[in-house]
């Protein structure tokens, strides 16, 4: 073999597979079990009284355990959002899609949710939305149980009511 035959190897693709074993812990177990029943379950901090959903079990601000369980409604407000139009490996949703920050009524923290049943150019901050759950026999202990959020048709929430939660 001559040296010319040994062309440089510039790139090797070696796919790997990742399987997670996830121990949810007591607090997240409550939230995840709630999804399996089609419910949002959060927790309230005994000190600052803020409601977290999902809850990690302790208050990030006060560092104390949150022991009060709070069931939250299906409705909330889009505090802010972006429209995703970029493909990437592992993506499971058709482009473009609207990724909203959803502040459930009674919660003090927002989380990411898919918005549907509204054209991308009509979505706005303050939009009132509700969760659409998957059929009962498809519910599971994960956020995939929420199919998406859709507009309720109510008037938009006043900016003052959610400006602290952007």
């Amino acid at each position: 073999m001559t040296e010319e035959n040994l062309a440089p190897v510039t790139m090797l693709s070696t796919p790997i597979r990742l399987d997670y074993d996830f121990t949810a812990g007591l607090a997240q177990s409550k939230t995840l079990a709630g999804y399996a029943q089609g419910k949002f379950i959060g927790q309230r901090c005994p000190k600052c009284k803020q409601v977290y959903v999902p809850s990690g079990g302790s208050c990030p601000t006060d560092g104390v355990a949150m022991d009060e369980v709070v069931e939250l409604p299906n409705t909330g407000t889009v505090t802010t959002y972006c429209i995703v139009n970029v493909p990437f490996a592992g993506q499971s949703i058709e482009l473009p899609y609207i990724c909203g920050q959803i502040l459930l009524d009674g919660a003090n923290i927002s989380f990411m949710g898919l918005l549907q049943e509204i054209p991308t150019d009509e979505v706005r901050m303050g939009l009132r939305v509700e969760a659409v759950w998957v059929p009962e026999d498809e519910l599971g202990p994960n956020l995939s149980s929420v199919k998406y959020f859709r507009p309720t048709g109510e008037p938009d929430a006043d900016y003052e009511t959610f400006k602290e939660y952007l």
Partner: protein
Amino acid sequence: MTERCAVIGIGQTYHKAKREDVSIAGLVREAARAALDDAGMDWGDIDAVVVGKAPDMFEGIMMPELYLASALGAVGKPMLRVHTAGSVGGSTAIVAAHLVQSGIHKRVLTVAFEKQSDSDAMWALSVPRPFSAPLLAGAGGYFAPIIRAYMHRSGAPNDVGMKVAVKDRLQALKNPYAHLHLPDISLKMVEESIMLWDPLHYLESCPSSDGAAAMVIASEDVAESTSKVTGRPPAWVHGTAMRSEPTMFAGRNQVNPQAGRDCAKDVYAQAGITNPRQQLDCAEVYVPFSWYEPMWLENLGFCDEGDGWKLTESGATALDGGDIPWNCSGGVLSSNPIGASGMLRFLEAALQVRNMAGEHQVEGASRALGHAYGGGSQFFSMWVVGSDKR
């Protein structure tokens, strides 16, 4: 922290989409060798090595510092790996500086890198988890809603981000190491580029780069003696600061994070700065998405809250004619080897006060800020460097 310390050697690679001619080891060695040459030193002169990079999941190499020990001349010496997400390049330099300021070592080599052509950062930042919806589309998907909140809150016109995108790319034309050289860049070109994460256009986002950055940080006596030999001035470290905050908590101000404000206050106090816009000659600030220039102008106290976009719009942050030029090197918007991006900010600030920045030199710069942030705006690292001792 009682001992003075200074940057006496600086090295970086030419940042590119793909460096197929080198492995990661070759990439970091290239930057490290250049920093040693600048310092007039060789591998044997170094007491300890501090290396940083962004999450291992990017390239899929667990603990790359293990295999890089020999490439970085760390055999038989203390070696330390730092990780604080996107801010890691900055915090790595700070850890190196602290090893000198504490009197433990006299000559520390610090290196940071990313080889994005080996990696899939977008995938690594978007892995589905059972407790969240599979919606997160990379860093842009995370930051775009926060940018929208800033636009709403400040009432800024829609084109401010595009102006930053043009300004930083024009400045990159003066930096031979920059990844993106777009001589035809214009507002129209940015506006016509695809809307990736509405409200962010493709050209308002940072590129994916291969690259490495390195510095030699030395004690006062070493800095003075080597400087006499090399004829190149040191950049004296006037202050270093790091802060963090949780990714999520009720009432978190994601647009103007507390940790960033606290970090800036700390580093300014150490450097004796009460008015950053007046007292600094330039700044290299981590702006991976265009709108983060006006947002960080406010966070870092260069203006009042809500006025950052006015500063950008007035041209104050441009190398050409501005009173407080930001990212003369072209910044993260022009080169983004993620793990190295923060160190490039720190290193470019040092180049400026050494009067060694070449075409993108701010005339007579004597005091500069280097800044990096990472995670969901939860890690901050900053330093102020000067041409004179403090």
